[in-house]
């Protein structure tokens, strides 16, 4: 059963410089107990999706499509109902969340806040629950009485995870939760997230630009480019045998140590992500693509079959319709 189902989601920001389409028709599905990794460059729309799922975007933003979270039609909810759904059905862990803590409030009070707000229990039980949560994220219960400045960056991110877990949500959206952390601490937090997700049977939508992190935690991957999903499939398969040239370039940015092919040969993608207000015709990726053919500037690729349980929006994949001048 899917906990989160996103259908044909489009998001347009209203700015003084005109409307900016950030997400342009995205379908996503996250099942109970599953980790979906959403990857892409900055500006590809991945964080906008996170915001849309919990309706955290500016009020003027135009959102179309359908988002179903735990049986709730998010885009149709009344403000009151929406507040109830946030945190209980789905919660979010941000990148800069470590700085979002109130510096003059004790850790315990901050974890108890969502529990009390949602009226799930009284003060005493809430405190008990906060203690349990701390232990779950690998911190001793006595830390409840600490202030945020007494914690290290990794510990703060653990607290943020505890807060996200507070109301036992079905889905956690993690938006770049480890980007600001040190390598060793990042690995620890990833391990923790993975363990919690597994033990609690959570659905996790993990958003990052770092594909290598996703391979560690995700079951399935969705790669975004210019507001659209361009490749989808099992994490291992997508990372090891990418079908879309964009995914290939992203994967090559994370070499395996010991692999002599990468030694002395850093590789990357040339050019810059497209301006959302001037998306190239045809395949939006074609100006940067290493495998570009003439048809790419006119054919808009859809997510075609690219192998078992694999989809990719590229004219080169096996499931693409026959096009003039395309050889596979």
């Amino acid at each position, binding site marked *: 059963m899917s906990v989160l189902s996103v259908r044909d989601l489009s998001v347009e920001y209203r700015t003084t410089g005109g409307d900016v389409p950030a997400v342009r028709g995205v379908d996503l599905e996250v099942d109970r107990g599953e980790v979906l990794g959403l990857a892409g*460059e*900055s500006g590809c729309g991945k964080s906008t999706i996170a915001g849309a799922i919990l309706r955290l975007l500016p009020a003027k933003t135009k959102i179309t499509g359908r988002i179903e979270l735990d049986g709730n039609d998010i885009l149709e909810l009344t403000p009151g109902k929406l507040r109830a759904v946030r945190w209980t059905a789905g919660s979010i862990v941000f990148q800069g969340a470590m700085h979002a803590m109130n510096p003059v409030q004790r850790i315990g009070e901050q974890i108890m806040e969502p529990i009390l707000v949602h009226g799930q229990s009284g003060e005493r039980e809430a405190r008990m629950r906060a203690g349990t949560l701390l232990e779950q994220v690998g911190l001793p219960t006595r830390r409840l009485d600490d202030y945020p400045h007494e914690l*290290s960056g*990794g510990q703060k991110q653990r607290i943020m995870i505890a807060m996200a877990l507070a109301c036992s949500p079905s889905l956690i959206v993690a938006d770049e939760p480890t980007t600001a952390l*040190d*390598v*060793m*601490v*990042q*690995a*620890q937090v990833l*391990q923790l997230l993975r363990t919690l997700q597994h033990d609690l049977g959570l659905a996790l939508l993990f958003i990052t*630009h*770092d*594909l*290598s*992190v996703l*391979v*560690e935690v995700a079951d399935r991957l969705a790669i975004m480019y210019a507001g659209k999903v361009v490749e989808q499939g099992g994490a*291992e398969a997508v*990372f*090891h045998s990418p079908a879309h040239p964009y995914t290939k*370039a*992203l994967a*090559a*940015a*994370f*070499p*395996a*140590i*010991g*692999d002599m092919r*990468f*030694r*002395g*040969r*850093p*590789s*990357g*993608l*040339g050019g*810059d*992500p497209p301006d959302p207000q001037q998306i190239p015709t045809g395949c939006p990726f074609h100006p940067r693509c290493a495998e570009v053919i003439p048809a790419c500037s006119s054919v808009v690729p859809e997510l075609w079959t690219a192998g078992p349980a694999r989809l990719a929006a590229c004219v080169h994949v096996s499931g693409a319709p026959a096009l003039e001048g395309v050889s596979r």
Partner: protein
Amino acid sequence: MSDPQPEPDVAELGVPVVEVEDLEVNFKGRVGFFAGLLGRKGFDAKAVDGVSITLYEGEVLALAGESGCGKTTTARAIMGLLIPDAGTIRYRGEPLARSRRGLRGYRKQVQMVFQDPTAALNPRQTIYEIVAEALRIHGVPGGPDAKTEEQLVARALSRAGLRPPERFYLLYPHELSGGQRQRVVIAGALVVDPAVIVADEPVSNLDASVRGEILALLMKLREGSRISILIVTHDLGLAWTVADRVAVMYLGRVVEVGPAEEVLQRPKHPYTKALLNVVPEAGGTERPILQGEPPDPTRIPKGCRFHPRCPVVASGRAERLGILNRCVSEDLALEEIAPGHDVACYLKGLGEEP
């Protein structure tokens, strides 16, 4: 260790360009004004505590470690941006001058690339002014075949991959993408033809997709002009792609240094192994992840400074091998275990793990 790798010979390392010897940098602990009146003193943090490294001509040396290990502080001391409490830094055999003029001459030779290109560029300067800045400070080189400032700026921008350069002259940093900004920083360093580039986490603030391009650019600089590059990074995967040699730091000390193939494929120090374990790798089998965080540099553990977190100590193996006493009480220095490969660990010579 079975396969005999062509061992690098010290003679082959070539000419040392920058030599750092026993570098120490302390950050003074601060106490409140009234506590100070009462004679209380803050703890000094030993950010760098006896680091010796050498950068040879034309090589890429990666200085790796967790944040707070002193790698950035070492880089800043090499740049002359802070005054070390002890130790010497020599450039081509000459100790680093502390006088203003001496430093200025040195800084023409040694240039820096910063972690966050957005912050490293003055938002009120055009790209042209940013790149020309070093020329204006050091004076446009004279002589019969002298080029004008504009020609030199154009050449530096082209070398950094911003072409055609004229197109960028009038732009401001905020009009460029992150990758382009980092190219501007690099062009600003290249314009004076430095011999050494110190790059502090040059790609960690960039999107994964453009990192490779920037690294490729840095690598390309060595063609022809024998530039030496010291690259400070937390990412051993990056070290694998670009570095000739790797030095791993922990809590203000270098704990392992050697050729990249050696250090990254046959690590000897338990800390290097732990760092390698957290390089995200596809199909990650369950590898042990080092728990906890490095201790505060105001309270450095006795003995080997890694011992409180060392898996060899924790598993009891150190005790079985009879080195535990030394691990927890005797300070130790780097020792050569293979030509050019130095390790600071009592485990050396006691055989590999079973």
